[in-house]
């Protein structure tokens, strides 16, 4: 597969409203680290949503891991999402599940045995320095801790690609560092493609990356 994400003249909108993204063209290769930046309301999160199939293109084409999103069936979309790791700005953890079970979710969906799920979840919780909170519920954690749990969940099944929407948006320095380290490690050691929507690109990241900038619905590649 030459590109894990390929958009051609991609136009996105909510219902019949004005387009949020206008005729975007972008190509992302496997194992690339990509930043999508832009002002608030420029359409960054909308673009990311289309990448995990929550928003269907109004015009143009969008291929994710070789699968066309435009007319994708429900079952195919389900299958595609099992290869993705998604981190949301608002964490989206299941509140009546423990931290450990939340991290296990993608593995459970993948059909792994309970033993494997628990082992992998504990390994990742150690990475995000939250193993001591494995039995807690998300509402018992701080925002930073919840985002680290969300990151552990996104990495649990070694996804082909991680799509992260402002993963460090409201976090303290320590939690932000943990998140960037995890994303960097995923790219460097697991060969994962990482797409991050953010306001600021950290200056201390120390890896090559691709950068798309959004302004008034138009996507520019920053060289």
């Amino acid at each position: 597969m030459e590109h894990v994400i390929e958009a051609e003249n991609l136009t996105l909108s909510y219902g019949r409203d004005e387009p949020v993204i206008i005729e975007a063209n972008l190509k992302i290769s496997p194992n690339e680290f990509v930043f999508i930046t832009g002002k608030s309301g420029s359409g960054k999160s909308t673009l990311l949503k289309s990448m995990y199939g929550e928003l269907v293109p109004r015009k143009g084409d969008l291929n994710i891991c070789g699968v066309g999103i435009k007319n994708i069936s429900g079952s195919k979309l389900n299958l595609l999402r099992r290869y993705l790791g998604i981190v949301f700005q608002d964490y989206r953890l299941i509140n009546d599940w423990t931290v450990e079970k939340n991290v296990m979710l993608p593995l459970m969906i993948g059909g792994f045995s309970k033993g494997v799920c628990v082992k992998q979840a504990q390994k990742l919780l150690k990475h995000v320095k939250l193993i001591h909170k494995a039995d807690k519920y998300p509402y018992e954690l701080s925002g930073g801790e919840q985002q680290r749990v969300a990151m552990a969940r996104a990495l649990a099944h070694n996804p082909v690609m991680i799509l992260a929407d402002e993963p460090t948006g409201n976090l303290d320095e320590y939690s932000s560092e943990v998140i960037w380290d995890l994303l960097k490690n995923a790219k460097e050691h697991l060969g994962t493609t990482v797409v991050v929507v953010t306001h600021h690109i950290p200056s201390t990241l120390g890896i090559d990356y691709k950068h798309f900038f959004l302004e008034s619905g138009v996507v520019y590649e920053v060289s």
Partner: protein
Amino acid sequence: MKSLKNHLSVIFPLFVLLFSLQFSFLSNQIVKDYAKKLTEDYTIVVVAPKILSQAVIQSRVSGIKSIQEISSKNILDRLKGNISSKNISLLKIALPKFYSIKLQSFPNMTEIERIKQKLLKSGLVSKVETFSKTHDKIYRMFESLKNTAFVFSVFIVIISVLLMFKQMRIWLLEHKERMSIMTLFGAPFWMKSAVLYRLVIVDSFISTFLVGIVFVVLPQIDKINEFAKTMDVKIPQFDLIYDSVTLLGISLAFSLFIVSLVLRKMNKE
């Protein structure tokens, strides 16, 4: 705590539904038994010039269960002191035959009138006494008892169905977020819905068990038995196998149907 609340919110409407259904079955059984008792107690008396055969009268008039001759010995014995034995013998021959007729089911007034007319037109009897006034009173009482029990059961079933639908809306809100998160990670439909299905299956068993306990204990309570005795009815026993299986079947079918409706709605959204 939340899990207990989740269970209770399913168990309560299910319990109300099953209780009302079992109550309805119970009152139907009581009404049936009562009708049987009334039928056994009710007789039509006929006067016939000749001996009547059960087979003949049954072939002419439908709905007749049995006939029995009423002995005239008592009447003749009373006259023995006043009339000579020769005249008694003559009177014995001349006296018409009296019969009591039992019916197959408890009749309404139209049915009584039909039987009466058929008997009179058959040429086998000369007079028919149906005790219709007394019967009409009892029949009306019986009908109102039956209707009250039916209306009460329907009323409770409607309430419990409404409760279940209200619960359904709460489920919709409570599980929507969890299911949408699972959807974003590619969970198949069965996995997203497993939690709800498991919940209602477990709660169906619990509700059936609780209703079973109530209806096993109910006939053991002295006050209830005394009340039933004054009403001249017997409270039927709860059949542990038949009634439990019936209630469990209804509970499972009903709750699974509702959950499927909820999930379909969620899936569409």
